[in-house]
């Protein structure tokens, strides 16, 4: 029953469940505990994502050195008590750069995912709800956009816009739009046929009000799944763009850039230059993917089982 309630939100609850007949309230801690028990891999992913968030937020406190400061005396220093993960060829502390790089990765990942998902979601909502020509035209545009792989489209955009954080966010968000649009549209297509929507129409409520007030809130489940799943891709694409030199510019520490040409040049002599940023990228992407999968299983009734 609890699960059924979670899929039916907003006005629909008021129409179907009389007040007082609902199940007892389940605490947040209990919900998390149940999620961890049912989806241990998802919980591990959540933990990794949480670690990423905490690292990004507390980067100033967690870093032991200035991540930008070069140090001619300690170039390519091995991991040591002074430099936990060693230093790069300019003498910059790898650990501090990874910690601050988490902030860059998270900002770029979250903002580009949100921007792409929100824009795509809006297009999907209007396209799915109104149908007809709006649907036809918007979906053909989506077809074109979706025909290009995420990395290729982001690469073309980033190269033409020039390397900067804002441009990277924009470049990654645009390829997300058609994915988000398709997911939200498919949800809207089923929701708009439901009885409570018909009832709302019967009461004379305007289309925009129905779309945004009664349809949109019910797409929140797929939206969360979508954003969590895209977060990993966005982090990976940011790393790839920075690796290729069209992403986040120096002096901001970026995991992708830490892996790029200069590091590759010294990798034989100082493997920690590529090892630790590589691990950081892997863990962040792995974590958000695991969490996204688990959330999808939990929030999507077709995959919930039983």
């Amino acid at each position, binding site marked *: 029953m609890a699960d059924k309630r979670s899929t039916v939100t907003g006005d629909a609850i008021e129409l179907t469940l009389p007040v007082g007949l609902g199940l007892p309230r389940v605490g947040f801690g209990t919900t998390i505990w149940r999620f961890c028990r049912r989806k241990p891999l998802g919980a591990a992913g959540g933990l990794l994502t949480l670690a990423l968030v905490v690292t990004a937020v507390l980067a100033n406190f967690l870093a032991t050195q200035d991540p*930008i*400061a*070069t*140090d*001619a*005396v300690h*170039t*390519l220093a091995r991991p040591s008590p002074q430099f936990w993960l060693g230093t790069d*060829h*300019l*003498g*910059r502390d790898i650990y501090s750069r990874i910690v601050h790089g988490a902030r860059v990765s998270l900002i770029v990942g979250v903002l580009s995912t949100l921007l792409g998902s929100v824009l795509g979601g809006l297009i999907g909502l209007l396209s799915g709800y109104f149908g007809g020509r709006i649907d036809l035209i918007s979906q053909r545009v989506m077809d074109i956009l979706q025909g290009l792989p995420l990395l290729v489209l982001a690469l073309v955009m980033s190269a033409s816009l*020039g*390397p*900067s954080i804002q441009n990277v966010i924009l470049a990654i968000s645009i390829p997300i739009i058609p994915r988000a649009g398709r997911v939200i549209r498919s949800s809207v297509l089923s929701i708009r046929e439901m009885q409570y929507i018909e009832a709302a129409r019967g009461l004379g409520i305007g289309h925009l009000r129905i779309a945004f007030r009664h349809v949109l809130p019910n797409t929140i489940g797929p939206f969360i799944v979508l954003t969590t799943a895209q977060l990993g891709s966005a982090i990976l694409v940011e790393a790839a763009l920075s690796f290729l*030199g*069209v992403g986040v*510019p*120096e*002096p901001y520490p970026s995991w992708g850039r830490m892996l*790029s*040409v*200069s590091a*590759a*040049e*010294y990798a*034989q*002599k100082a493997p920690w230059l590529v090892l630790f940023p590589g691990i950081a990228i892997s863990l962040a992407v792995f974590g958000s993917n695991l969490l996204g999968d688990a959330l999808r299983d939990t929030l999507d009734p077709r995959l919930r089982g039983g």
Partner: protein
Amino acid sequence: MSRFPRLALVLGLAGLSAVTGLTAIPAVGQAPKSGGVLNIMQREDPPQGFSIHETATISTVWPGMPCFNNLVLFDPLKKTESMDTIIGELAEKWSWQDNYRNLVFFLRKDVKWHDGKPFTSKDVKYTFDMVREAPDAQAKLRINPRKDWYANVEKIEAADPYTVVFHLKRPQPSLLMMLASGYSPVYPAHVPPAELRTTCVGTGPFKLKEWKKGEYIDFVKNADYFVKGRPYLDGLRYIPIQERGTKFAALQSGRLDVAFPGDASKTIADQVTKAEPRIKLTIAHQNVNDNLLLNVTKPPFNNVKVRQAISMAIDRRAAVQAVHQGGAVVGASLAPRPYGVWGLLEKDLAGLPGYGKSADEKARARKLLIEAGFGPANPLKVEMATRNIPIYIDLASFVISELRQVGVEATLKQIETAQWHPLATRKEYQAGPNLTGIGPDDPDANFYENYACGSPRNYTGYCDEQVMKMIDQQSQELDPKKRVQMVWNVQKKLEEDAARPMIDWRLEHYLQWQYVKNLIPHQSIYNYGRMQEVWLDK
């Protein structure tokens, strides 16, 4: 000749600074073997094709040189370039006349262009009138980076088909050094310069066979070459590979025989020679410096105090260690000794802004910034622009870190190479960590190209009448000892004005397989790519 009645007499009496042709060059060590194709590393497709006069990058000079000849050239078999190592190519002999005001070249008569047409003095006049943008020049270059090398040339006269005279406004001994650079080939008068961007018609030891962009540039031996018995090789193949790891793996595996000049860092060179001991490492000098461009035409860098503060903030010795892992040396605007002839001595450097103890210099920088109106409450904010290439970005990261230590907040804008040069020429930037390569190790070549008022390559816009006067004075000084002193004074003044703060001079770590003979790195990477003397011992 009738216009120069004194010429024959002067030539006879004054004696010729005659140098015999290249046929006299001996092979070093064992007897050279003919045959084989040399596989050569190329950094990228040559941006200006083979039009060397239109380029400012080794990417064009390196594959362009085997196609052409100069009037004179630095001896390819001698690693040190100087007036004494200049040998004739298209010029059999040459002579300074009228106290270094006229330079007369006597040309070879047996030279043909690759298309079979004869080479004459008209080709020489055509080429250098075009480069100096003479009013009656028959052609125009699209880009002309070294126009100011020839600003002192009053006129060029093709006295007869095999004699050409450069008339100068004032004495300028350095003209010969500039003409001996790989940047100074003679173009064919019957071929428009635009065509040389896609094909190559020269007189050089190798003819262009095919250029397949992104794959290879193939040259074949010029069977009609005027130096008998040369070249030794049957052909050359330049293979462009951009990614540094890949290209040096290709060298290590034997797919390439020789490296691209200036591409191997000290770390890479150490790794490659350790992995493959049959690859030979030669440490030389690149004649390429790291510097910081400050746009003096706009605030805040039109204020000399701000420029000096920026210069003082940069620890040069730390740059050598951090950016180059020790593979560079500190120097002012001309290459330091022992790699160069004109560089300031260590004791003179120590007194210049930015060359003292780092902590003291940074303290002085902060003081100057406060005097200029910048402090913790109102920090100087600078947008750096640099090419989107790792060696530039590493330098920029280092500079930004140094500037932060004196309270300057710098950000970095990475720019594609194709956009960088027009942007720098138009001075649409605030500051830019930069690499500057100079053809020959010569004060005129450097000063007129990079510091002269109005020069297209004077990216900073620095223009000072007093400095121009000092540059002109040293240029016409015939006593080498006096001239060195004058050149030092110019360098000191440039550093004091922070006209273009020098950071360091790159050392060359040149890699080639041991079986490649007679490819000898010089003190400048721009002058030894002719490949005429190179042979393979395998």
